[in-house]
């Protein structure tokens, strides 16, 4: 009886461990969704632009956005606009936490992608590819459309 009990308990523990292990591996690939990526059209010959996106973490584990890149821009940085006591500051984000079951929306006045060193002028209707790199080497790509604010 006792042996049987312990056997069942061991089976249960093993299954739980396996399940958790599988969870840790499987969440990463399909549970990050990017949507609504857009670049705000700027004045002609503007090398510095702002980009916005919505990131959904549908998984059961927190993750972190580590960097963003694009073949069209020399550098892409993640910044957050903060207006405190009537002073606007841009705070560079060295990684951005995306909690489990949450959505992080980049929008004017808040989080934005600082797009530095555009290869050429962009206008409404143009498209630009971006690659988002998360922890555990998860990479997601999305095409952003240029549009007026």
């Amino acid at each position, binding site marked *: 009886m006792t042996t049987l009990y312990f056997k069942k308990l061991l089976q249960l523990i093993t299954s739980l461990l396996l399940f958790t292990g599988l969870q840790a591996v499987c969440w990463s690939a399909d549970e990050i969704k990017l949507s609504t990526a857009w670049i*705000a059209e*700027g*004045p*002609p*010959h*503007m090398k*510095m*632009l*702002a980009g916005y996106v919505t990131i959904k973490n549908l998984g059961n584990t927190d993750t972190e956005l580590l960097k963003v890149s694009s073949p069209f821009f020399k550098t892409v940085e993640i*910044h957050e*606009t903060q*207006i405190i006591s*009537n*002073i*606007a*500051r*841009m705070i*560079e984000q060295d990684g951005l936490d995306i909690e489990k079951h949450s959505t992080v929306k980049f929008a*004017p*006045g808040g989080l*934005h992608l*600082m*797009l*530095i060193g555009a290869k050429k002028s962009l206008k409404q209707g143009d498209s630009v590819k971006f690659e988002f790199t998360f922890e555990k080497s998860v990479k997601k790509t999305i095409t952003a459309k240029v549009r007026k*604010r």
Partner: protein
Amino acid sequence: MNSINKLHISLIVLLSIFSGLAGVWLYQIQKPNKLAIPEGLESTVLDKAFPITEFNLIDHNNNEFSQKNLKNKWTFIFFGFTNCPDVCPTTLLTMQQVWKKLASVQQNTSQQKQLLLVSVDPKRDTVDKLKPYIEYYNPEFIGITGSLLEITKLTKRLGVLYEYDNHGKSDGSYTVDHSTQIYLIDPTANLRAIFSAPHNAKSISENYLKIINFYASKL
């Protein structure tokens, strides 16, 4: 009636008149002067004119722009820089909407107005950069640049703060932290009102119309 009674009556009458006058005077000095500034506005309207002192800058067409260019029209001024990807474009877009709203209601074109974006980054915001930038938002808008010394005369006068931030990098790149208020200067080159963020086109245009109508006959 004897003379003493007449004297008493005269004194009482005089005292009554005096008390009446004193009462009216006290009421007048205690009553708030409701005509001093327009009320009920979201913008901060100054109760005393605040003169803009002399400065010497240039506009995006490389023409001189100084305190005299503030005369005879209402001027919106805000401070930013062209490498600002988020706040400044949003503010310019809001002011674009204000211009559209005012165009649809203002029949009286003698009330001229102008919008100035004064650069707090004159090192990068040369006339060549400023011109296509400001004209993209509205060809009527004016970009202002020049020497940092002259720009600082204006920022100090208005209490505008700005600071360069290289985010710990040594590649020469930087952003500029800056005040977000929009200042309204009257046609006598005096600061009259301040609009604080978040900027709303409807609120700014309505406040502006109330302010200029209030001061129409007073300046």
